[in-house]
């Protein structure tokens, strides 16, 4: 019995209480445990991704109960990729948190960080919708804790909005789960995929509403306009490393949409036909537009980056909402890019913050280390705006190409290209004020000298940027892999068979036929 799959969940779930129990007052122990844990996560995640790369679907039955009666974890190409992405991002962000001493500015940073990772990993690995809900709760409450780390009036106010909005989302999730269970009598994703095929075409209302409510829940997580209102101020006000880690959180929503709406409610399913075609793509286009327009309108750097996250989620959602193999391929490539770019940008925001009075987009006297910061900002901005030579450009080309044969190609291209231009203008303005105009401000000799950010901080940001470069250079293998993921998603039969046909406790296929009872 291989337990590797559950390790990304259990490892942080052990480290966090251990830190709370034993190392509450010892920052050095906390840091060591936390860093070692996340590094181990990277290794485990890489192993899992390698194992899944040949198309193997690995099942883990919790409590030895067979699906759909117990909870299962499923590692396929998609989930392991997301787990690996999370682990890698988390590693560099944690390096930054340690390097910038952000972890020392409030209580329980490392414990909450580990719990947060547990929630995210669980959400990617679980094969059960209710379990997904539980992990959404874990990652929500942990993220709230991280968000208000160190406190402060503005941050606390933003935190309240964040948690309230997401609690509304959780409530809706419960409604949706109740509706799905009432309609199908199961919560296992693979089982659901089989049962929705049995829906009577003369009574589709139930499953339709359930499906669309669930989609709304995930759309909230993915910050699709007009369900994005929780994002701008909370990402802007959150401590930088936390905001950087949050770059993966919106992707949880995108992941869930990809998973559920290719496997359970695939685009060709009769019962749920025409549910989201009319609004998801327009909403994604508006998200992209709002994100980039918000980027232009922002008066502070942190909000600028927060809006760019909304915009990049718009890109992801445009590609997903095509619900074609090419679209998902492009979306997955872009998800990796957008996660790394957003993470790097938020950390850079903090580098900037550490050398200035505030983050207002005004010229302030230059300080030590600002040339390096400027270079990093330039690079990350290029990536985020989708200019060559970084992966944002490749992702944009993939998405444009994927949408070529669709009916709404004119709209998609127009919005993507025009909003790219707005992003270029916005980033150009911000960068030139922050890093160029400040050269014309005389340094006040009386001002206290601020220490340049620590080398470890730069290493962390540099690491993320290096990953972006690698994502670009290796775009060939990466796209080949995301297209393999996409192929696996659109042929879910092996996945479903693995989940449902593997016997567990008390489900001996030869004597006791519980499964047949259930179907």
């Amino acid at each position: 019995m291989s337990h590797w799959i559950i390790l990304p969940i259990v490892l942080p779930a052990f480290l966090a209480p251990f830190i709370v129990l034993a190392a509450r007052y010892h920052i050095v122990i906390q840091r060591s445990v936390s860093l070692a844990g996340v590094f181990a996560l990277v290794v485990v995640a890489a192993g899992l991704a390698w194992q899944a790369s040949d198309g193997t679907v690995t099942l883990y039955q919790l409590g030895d109960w067979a699906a759909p009666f117990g909870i299962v974890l499923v590692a396929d190409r998609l989930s392991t990729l997301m787990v690996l992405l999370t682990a890698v991002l988390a590693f560099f962000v944690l390096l930054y948190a340690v390097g910038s001493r952000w972890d020392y500015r409030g209580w329980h940073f490392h414990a909450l960080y580990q719990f947060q990772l547990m929630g995210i990993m669980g959400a990617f690995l679980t094969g059960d919708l209710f379990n997904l809900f539980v992990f959404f709760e874990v990652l929500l409450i942990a993220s709230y804790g991280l968000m208000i780390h160190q406190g402060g009036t503005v941050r606390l106010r933003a935190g309240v909005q964040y948690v309230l909005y997401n609690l509304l989302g959780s409530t809706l999730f419960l409604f949706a789960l109740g509706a799905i269970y009432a309609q199908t009598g199961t919560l296992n994703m693979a089982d659901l995929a089989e049962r929705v095929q049995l829906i009577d075409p003369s009574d589709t209302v139930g499953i339709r509403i359930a499906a669309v409510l669930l989609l709304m829940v995930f759309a909230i997580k993915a910050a699709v306009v007009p369900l994005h209102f929780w994002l701008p101020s909370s990402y802007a006000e959150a401590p930088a490393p936390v905001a950087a880690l949050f770059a993966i959180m919106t992707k949880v929503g995108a992941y869930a949409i990809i998973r559920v709406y290719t496997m359970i409610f695939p685009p060709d399913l009769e019962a749920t036909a025409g549910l989201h075609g009319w609004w998801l793509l327009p909403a994604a286009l508006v998200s992209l537009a709002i994100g980039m327009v918000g980027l232009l309108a922002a008066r502070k750097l942190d909000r600028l980056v927060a809006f760019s996250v909304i915009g990049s989620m718009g890109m992801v959602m445009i590609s997903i909402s095509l619900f074609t193999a090419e679209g998902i391929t492009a979306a997955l490539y872009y998800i990796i890019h957008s996660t790394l770019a957003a993470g790097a940008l938020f950390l850079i925001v903090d580098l900037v913050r550490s050398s200035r009075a505030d983050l207002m987009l005004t010229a302030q006297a230059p300080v030590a280390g600002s040339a390096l910061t400027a270079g990093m900002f330039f690079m990350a901005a290029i990536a985020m705006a989708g200019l060559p030579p970084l992966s944002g450009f490749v992702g944009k080309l993939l998405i444009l190409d994927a949408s070529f044969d669709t009916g709404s190609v004119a709209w998609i291209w127009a919005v993507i290209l025009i909003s790219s231009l707005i992003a270029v203008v916005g980033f150009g303005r911000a960068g030139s004020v922050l890093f160029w105009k400040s050269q014309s401000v005389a340094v006040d000799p009386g001002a206290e000298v601020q220490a340049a950010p620590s080398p470890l901080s730069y290493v962390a940001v540099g690491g993320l940027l290096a990953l972006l470069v690698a994502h670009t250079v290796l775009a060939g293998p990466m796209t080949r892999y995301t297209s393999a993921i996409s192929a696996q998603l659109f042929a879910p039969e092996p996945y479903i068979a693995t989940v449902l046909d593997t016997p567990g406790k008390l489900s001996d296929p030869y004597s006791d036929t519980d499964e047949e009872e259930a179907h």
Partner: protein
Amino acid sequence: MSLFLVVALPFLGALLPGLMNTAGRAACAGVTFAVSLAAFVGLLTNLPAVLAGEMVTARIDWIPLLGLNVTLMLDGLGFFFAMLILGIGLLIITYARFYLAREDNMGEFFTYLLLFQGAMVGIVLSDNILLLLVFWELTSLSSFLLIGYWKHLPEGRQGARMALTVTGMGGLAMIGGMLILGNIVGSYDLSVILQNRELIQGSPLYLPALILILLGCFTKSAQFPFHFWLPHAMAAPTPVSAYLHSATMVKAGIFLMARMWPVLSGTPEWFVLVTGAGLITMVLGAVIALFKHDLKALLAFSTVSHLGLITMLLGTGTAFGAMAAVFHIMNHATFKAALFMSAGIIDHETHTRDIRRLGGLRHLMPVTFGIATLAALSMAGIPLLNGFLSKEMMLEEAYHTVLLDSHWLVPGLAVLGSLFSAAYCFRLIGHVFLGPVRDDYPHKPHDPEPGLWLPPAFLVVLVVGIGIAPFLVEPFVKLVTASVLGGTAELPYQHIKIWHGLVPALYMSIAAVVGGLIVVSAFNPLLRLWDAAPRPEAKRIFDAIIGGVVRLSERVIHGVHNGSFTRYAAIMTVAVVAVGYHAWATGTVGPATRVPQVASPVQIAGWAMLVAATLGLVLLHRNRLLSLVLIGIVGLVVSVGFVFFSAPDLAMTQLTVEVVTIILLLLALNFLPNRTPIESTVLRRTRDAVLAVAAGVATMALSYHYLLRDTISPSISEFHLANSYKGGGGTNVVNVILVDFRGFDTYGEIIVLGIAALLIYALTEALLDGPVRARLLNRKPTDPRAGDMHPMMMVVMTRVIMPVVMLVGFYIFLRGHNEPGGGFIAGLVVSIGFVMQYMASGFAWTSARLRYPYHGVIGAGVLTAGLTGIGSWFVGKPFLTSDYTYVRIPPFQEFELATAALFDLGVFLAVVGAVMLSLESFSRLARRAHVPDVEHPMDIDPSRDDPPDPLQPRTEA
């Protein structure tokens, strides 16, 4: 040398200047020069193959899925441009070494310059149009960095942003055009695309593709109406202006038009768009250039004008036009780069570029005078210089071109353009170098060191050489032209020579030069006329557009995101209800399969209480204490409901949760005002009410629908019911589901609970560090305090009851697996026991007797549950696999030992820890708020006769 290396060398070399920066300026420029030279030599090694008419290629797959591969090709056209880029690059690097001041960061400059060089070489060698796009945008970015190189100058920053915006826009449009083109042909490889003229021109997507690609070309090559960015890019250091903005980058658009010439040209659309834009640009640029007083602005507009000339030639779609264009590209690069460098020298020496402050420099700077005059005369089209030759060819071509059914339009405009072109050249020579020597130059000028004048001098040698002996370059020009034509047209038979006889072009040329002389002699009255005439100022328009867009975005974004949570929630509600309604409206409704039960009077009564309490809550929610009471009622009715529906576990949980939350909320209320203020208008509250009712009705309808229908196949709960005892060892199915079937969910949920408690703790800490602390310290209670805060009755009773509570908790914990109960409920019950002690004797007294920190209890709980789960790994089973056995220890009866109980212990500990930590956090707030605390268990103790505590404000009470 491999083409990869030719392209990659500048990019790799870009790392060096930054590295060598500290080694001195000569070293820094030296490595840059060496890198460029290596690439140049590498290019030249391919010359024999090119001359032999071969196509040199190199290919590496990058993203085959997209069709974006690193494929390079070198033909005559590519070689021509690459040679221009690298060759002039070498001259510019030499020039820049002496031009840049000591305080300029030379490493940074050369890094950007090499990045640009690499990108530019990449454009001209790309065989893949997507790869070409990558390099294309890279030139925009590096040009952005170079224009803004002098960061402290506002003109530099604004010019950089304007250039990036305009060329970036074109680049984005071109992405669209290239993708369309690739999709028409089915390949992004130029070598394939160039073979498919009929396919492309026959496609309905030809026109959109053409327009989008031309947008890219026109913005890059500063064609009307996108010409305005180029003069503002002149804020860059002069080497940049000479290199990027006259010789190379601005020719990228022209290069692309030439590259695409075989497949895009020859249609009426191409002709009208390209020739039209070129003509307008040529004339407009020349006219504006005449009246510019800034030397670099004059040269910038003259560049715009000449780019228009070349564009116009490409637009005609004839082979002769193409050849003239190629020849003029070559000539323009030589004389214009020389002129820019001369302008740089003048600026460098006199500290001004304003023509009105110059004059008479021929005596002071004879070398510069010679260089600049020859280059300018060539530009004016004076015989024996190369500019004359290509201008003659242009006029010849214009003479044969019919636009809009007019034989006069194109030749007329061509002559007009040439006329003004000659005029500004004469003005440049006359007003800068001729005339009397002045005594008011900002800086006394003299000829510079050779490092500055040698590069332009070299170019002027070419200007004269080609002008006198054009037959030397003719084979090369024809070679390049052949690769432009790409086999779609016959190579022109005409030869490039100085004397063609008395042809119309000669008359037109003479007219232009004579006209130019007349214009420049009447310059002053013309200038007054020009200054008096109203004309649009491009920068002001551009800034107004950008400013308007920014203001509009600010209005939209800040208007929508106004921070009002109710608005956000309202929008979300509307969205959810709307898509839900759509799902309902487009679905089919089947008949009900279940019969509704009849409600008994008790049920109706319970329902009525629930409704009444909820309605009351809505109406009275501004009184916070009252609303808490009403919430309590709702919770109690719900737990009664659970009892009625035979769910004792849920009922017990609900009941205990209710008690604990109400106590915690009461504690929180202690720090809040009694009433919620009214913050919204009646209108907004009405809106919210309507939305709330709509959502509520929708939810009700949804529940009603599902309650009346069976699941499509039997629910999984049947398995749980059947196997709870057999597989989980418990007869209480709810508990077995919680700790076994779905123990993993429970594991997650206790973690949520634990995090929530840690959060409350952290939040309290953060609050106490912040401004809230002062407010807490200065808080005056609104109501009088109770005189006896820790009454004896309560103290005695809670003490007595404590062991009982513990016992009940223990009992509930133990029976959980088979009867209603379990760790969760037990944890809540035990917590209530502790909470009672806090209430009775105060926070300080109780905390002082606390032995285990609650953080630790939570941690221990989560760890216990997790360790139970891991335990199953040792027997080769998955996480949380349960097992149970029956043991008999005399004299007790046989009892069950289940691993699930251990898991439940973890749940128990986590719940106790979480509740208590939250309570403790609130109590710390209270202690900071100076709520009087005592060290005694009760305030009035008969066994103690100490005087009343002076801190106690008992007398006021």
